[in-house]
């Protein structure tokens, strides 16, 4: 029997807050978390970045969550994952220490800061491996299952949810906790700089004057369950289905035609038994690089989605890599539950070749069905469909 899959209990830790209410309040108010960073910590030159308050993270962890007996040291990223999962669990009745529950971790670089000798000394070299990071998180919560670790560039978060949905639908697990996270690091910043894909200003997805992306750090958590009663909130949203694809075109640039993303969207519609006309809103990747946004506009147009209101949340959080898919899905779930379309921050003058409907102001609208997409290095794409009951 195929089980229905429900999603909820969302958490976001980002530059805009440590729980969903703080993040949504800032998006409502039109605040962005992208600020000029002059600390020199991540780059030799000042850059607009979206960073999490690490002091608050440390304090929160030390107050409530640290393990004293026996004492265990957690890295900044592990603390972020733990705080995020804890907050999601408060909104849900599932047992995280049950064998019915699986943890899925989505991350591009995990504890990459442990390449620094002083960090490695503190935590040990082993922790640089993503499966060790998974072991730390599962161990903290006494979850008996080996976590599923997705490391698939910028689509990791969306793919984590796609796999979670399939694992529940097929009856392998009753509950899945999907947690996506990545830290800001000089490693990442220098790489994107070498690609010349960073903007010196807050990014402007789909805008005529867009000139690159901003990097962000953060963590997002969603709980997926076959039991709609597992959520504190009534009427959780259903995950209908999802799929991934590859452009088979270039490893570091998106396809010009958008064919790969179109395939992912088309396959997601098929697994969800949905067609384009049923969609009320779309949350796309929208990094604000020239090529990415243009590619997405072509894919949406080809999929018959030109009229559907579209949002990129990169203008609020920057590009949070492995966290992006989960954070942006969490906002999309809020958008559905609150029947609100949120403004796509940074957009004012249409700047892509297809006439897609980028959301220019925050307003009420009944939203029943939502598409989430992501695209990333390696030519990978993924798409997911959500619907209210």
């Amino acid at each position, binding site marked *: 029997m195929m089980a229905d899959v429900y999603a909820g209990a969302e958490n976001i830790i980002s530059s805009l807050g440590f729980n969903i209410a703080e993040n949504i309040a800032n998006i409502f108010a039109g605040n962005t978390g992208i600020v000029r960073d002059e600390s020199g910590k991540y780059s*030799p030159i000042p850059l607009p970045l979206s960073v999490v308050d690490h002091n608050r993270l440390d304090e929160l962890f030390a107050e409530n969550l640290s393990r004293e007996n026996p004492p265990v040291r957690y890295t900044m990223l592990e603390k972020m994952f733990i705080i995020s999962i804890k907050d999601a669990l408060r909104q849900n009745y599932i047992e995280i220490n049950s064998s019915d529950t699986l943890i899925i971790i989505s991350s*591009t*670089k*995990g504890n*990459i800061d442990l*390449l620094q000798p002083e960090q490695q000394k503190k935590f040990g070299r082993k922790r*640089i*491996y*993503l*499966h060790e990071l*998974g072991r730390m998180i599962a161990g903290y919560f006494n979850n008996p299952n*080996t976590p*599923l*670790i*997705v*490391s*698939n*560039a910028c689509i990791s978060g969306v*793919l984590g949810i796609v*796999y979670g949905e*399939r*694992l529940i639908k*097929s009856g*392998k697990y009753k509950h899945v906790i999907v947690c996506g996270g990545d830290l800001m690091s*000089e*490693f990442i910043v*220098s*790489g*994107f*700089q*070498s*690609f010349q894909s960073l903007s010196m200003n807050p990014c402007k997805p789909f805008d005529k004057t867009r000139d690159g992306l901003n990097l962000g750090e953060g963590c997002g958590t969603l709980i997926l369950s076959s039991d709609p009663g597992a959520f504190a909130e009534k009427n959780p949203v259903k995950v209908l*289905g999802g*799929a*991934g*694809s*590859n*452009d*088979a*075109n*270039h*490893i*570091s640039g998106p396809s010009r035609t958008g*064919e*790969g993303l179109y*395939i992912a969207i088309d*396959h997601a519609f*098929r*697994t969800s038994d949905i067609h384009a006309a049923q969609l009320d809103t779309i949350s796309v990747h929208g990094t604000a690089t020239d090529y990415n946004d243009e590619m997405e506009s072509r894919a949406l147009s080809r999929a018959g989605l030109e009229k559907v209101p579209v949002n990129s949340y990169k203008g609020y959080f920057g590009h949070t890599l492995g966290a992006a898919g989960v954070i942006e899905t969490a906002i999309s779930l809020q958008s559905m539950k609150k029947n609100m379309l949120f403004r796509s921050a940074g957009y004012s003058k249409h700047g892509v070749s297809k006439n897609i409907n980028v959301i220019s102001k925050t307003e009420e609208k009944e939203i029943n069905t939502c598409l989430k997409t992501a695209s990333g*290095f*390696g*030519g*990978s794409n993924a798409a997911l469909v959500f619907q209210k009951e």
Partner: protein
Amino acid sequence: MALIIRKYCAIRDARISVDGKAVFSYEGQDGFKKFIRAAYKHYQTDYPKFFKMDNLSKLGFFSVEVLLKGEDILKLHPAEKTGIILTNASSSLEIDEKHFESIKDRGHYFPSPSNFVYTLPNIMAGEAAIRHKIKGENTVLISEHFDPELVFCLVELAFKSKLLSSCICGWVEQYENNYESLLFLVEKDKNNSAEDIIFEPSNLTNIYKLEQKDGRINTKA
């Protein structure tokens, strides 16, 4: 719906085998780079981009090359219904360290885009997808060891979602001179031939063990 392993290949310890039979071995004991270069030549591969890849992508790319040698996969399966699902333990750690070295000292700060792009494990799947024009589901997952249950479970779920008609899947692990790959070409069973190897965890485990026993994959990993 039964799934079958139509073909499999293993690379380890300077040897390559296909369907359990050794097809190439390199006598020199001088590490991964020379071995993979010799294998590339032996197979008369003509793909200059290969030399730009990091070592993990070279291994992933070449393993798929060996698996699909003599196959016209897109004649049998639509490109968008052919998937690549790979697992690995070390992610892209070797090239990560190289990129890190290039930015360690702000006085000698030379991050290179051609290194950085490989600091993601899924790039190897992307390279194979480009080479063979494969456009279906494309995923890289991290597990500490080759995990037959994990590979089986995720591939089966993708077939069950009716998204795949064929899938290249398995294990591609490389860090410095420790390397090992085991890939399977999985398809839906059409002929019900008794010779077909059923795609199931016990068969994946057996094949992995046999490769170890025959010395084609050694066990020191």
